[in-house]
């Protein structure tokens, strides 16, 4: 809760930086997000110690983990002064997802109750896929930064020249690398699925003969995987660069964020 409040302060401060046009290096936002992640890490560790597992077993924990990943990766990028303003673009996303995660219905088990279905492989699967969403989230933030800078350069806005921002080719590279990292993590996370249900019959529908592969969440994950594969393939091989690629990264993460919650409700294997 405290961490989300700090992320909220960072969001308000980011609006101020937008208004000022990102004209000089600013460490306040970096400091705020650092403070936020320290508080969040402490809370996540306490919960993890209570559960004796990585806390990624309900929607609240999943979203918290995605937020944590975005902030952690940003803090590494933010070590370079020209990339520090990535935080101003990331803060609203972090705050938004953070507030959504705080909805009481998303955390029915509470901190004290251990999850019903859990083992090391499940934790690894959840952590890998959520880390991938974090990477996709930050790539969409870099893409928004690209689109802003690109728009300013295209329409001769003075902010394009005065702002302490990285060149747009570097922003495109960052977006692409984050997408590749997210894609690799998602692939690894999804590759674990067959092993999670090996020897288990409780997820097999005998009447239809359908197994885990008909689970909406699994189908949705495959769709997400295909979407990102298509985005990366068209970027690499068919010169879909610049604005289109950036919009693709933004749209991809928007799709993940907007459908994640609903698909979890439909999935029998992801109900908490």
């Amino acid at each position: 809760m405290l961490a989300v409040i700090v992320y909220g302060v960072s969001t308000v401060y980011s609006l101020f930086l937008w208004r000022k046009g990102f004209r000089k290096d600013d460490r306040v936002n970096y400091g705020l997000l650092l403070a936020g992640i320290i508080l969040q890490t402490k809370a996540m560790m306490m919960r993890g110690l209570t559960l004796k597992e990585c806390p990624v077993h309900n929607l609240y924990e999943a979203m918290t983990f995605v937020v944590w990943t975005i902030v952690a990766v940003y803090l590494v990028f933010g070590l370079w002064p020209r990339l520090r303003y990535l935080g101003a673009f990331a803060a609203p996303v972090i705050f938004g997802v953070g507030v959504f995660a705080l909805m009481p219905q998303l955390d029915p088990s509470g901190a004290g109750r251990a999850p019903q279905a859990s083992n090391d492989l499940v934790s690894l699967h959840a952590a890998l896929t959520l880390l991938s969403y974090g990477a996709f989230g930050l790539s969409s933030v870099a893409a928004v930064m690209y689109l802003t800078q690109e728009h300013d350069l295209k329409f001769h806005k003075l902010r394009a020249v005065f702002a302490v921002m990285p060149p747009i080719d570097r922003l495109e590279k960052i977006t692409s690398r984050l997408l590749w990292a997210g894609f690799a993590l998602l692939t690894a996370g999804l590759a674990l699925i067959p092993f999670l249900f090996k020897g288990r019959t409780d997820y097999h529908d005998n009447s239809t003969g359908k197994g885990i592969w008909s689970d909406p969440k699994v189908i949705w994950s495959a769709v997400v995987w295909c979407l990102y594969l298509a985005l990366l393939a068209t970027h690499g091989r068919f010169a879909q660069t610049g604005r289109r690629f950036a919009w693709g990264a933004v749209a991809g993460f928007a799709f993940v964020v907007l459908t994640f919650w609903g698909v979890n409700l439909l999935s029998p294997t992801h109900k908490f």
Partner: protein
Amino acid sequence: MALLVIGLSHHSSPVATRERFAFSEAAIPGALEALRAAGAAREAVILSTCNRVEIYAASDLPEAAAVAELRRFLFDYHKDKHPPGGEIYARGGRQGLEHLFKVACGLDSMVLGETEILGQLKKAYDIALRHKHTGAVLNRAFQKAFNVAKRVRTETHIQRGSVSVGSVAVELAEKLFSSLGEHPVMIIGAGEAGEKTARALLARGARSIIVSNRSRDRALELARELEGRAVRFEDWAVEFPRIDILISSTAAPHCILDRARLEPLMKARKNRPLLLIDIAVPRDIDPSVSFLENVYLYNIDDLQAIADDYLQQRRVEIARCEAIIAEKAGAMNALDSAVNARLGGLDKASA
């Protein structure tokens, strides 16, 4: 003994007058020797640039007499038969110190906040120091001036941004590309403006430069100077797929690049970002090309608007710079006065 400055600058006189009083670098040690031998000053530094000729001095004479001697030296040395009147200014004491600090900070320069003058001032001081024409007064004043210039540069935005069209073009290129060395540049039209912009890009790391001009000889000459290569004017489109930055400054009465021509060229370039700098009047590039994705077009007015805005920002900083200068000059002047009063008291006591 206080600092005294006498001279002419772009503020007070036209270039025709300034060049009559200029000192060549080689002549400065001799001129300083002559100045001190004439008894006009005990210590002296001569600063001679395209925008100013100034003598910084410390003399045992009263201020008015010292100014008169320095003026006489200036006219006699250059054998000038038509001495200008109000075009030569003289400032002593605290005003002289403030002037020196302003010059060091680029506040008195034609391009506000430029840094070249600080290097020139350091060089002028170094020449005088090496030939032993400086002493306690000028050594202290110049060291302080360099110190103030550093502080002003650190604490204010007086040197921020680009105020020339060429450097603004470079800044824009650096907003698109992280390393200019990896992005080939083409210049169409080997005029002065294009050359200046290309040189600014070269200074910031651009490596591969292609020059295309109607006059093949001029293209070859410029390509040689820029360590690039020349292509025939008819063939510039052939080279286009390789380049990422185009500087166009031809004298053509019509556009040489429009949307219909650029579209297939962009496909051949695999739609990589392209920066088009059109500094020709009339314009060489049709504005409609900016509707194409990954094409960034800036004409001379766009570049000038950015340069003007930077200059405006620098002007806003003047007050902050002047406050630092006044503070430092005031403190130094007060200390000098106290030391002089103490020395005066000691002289009276010993008498």
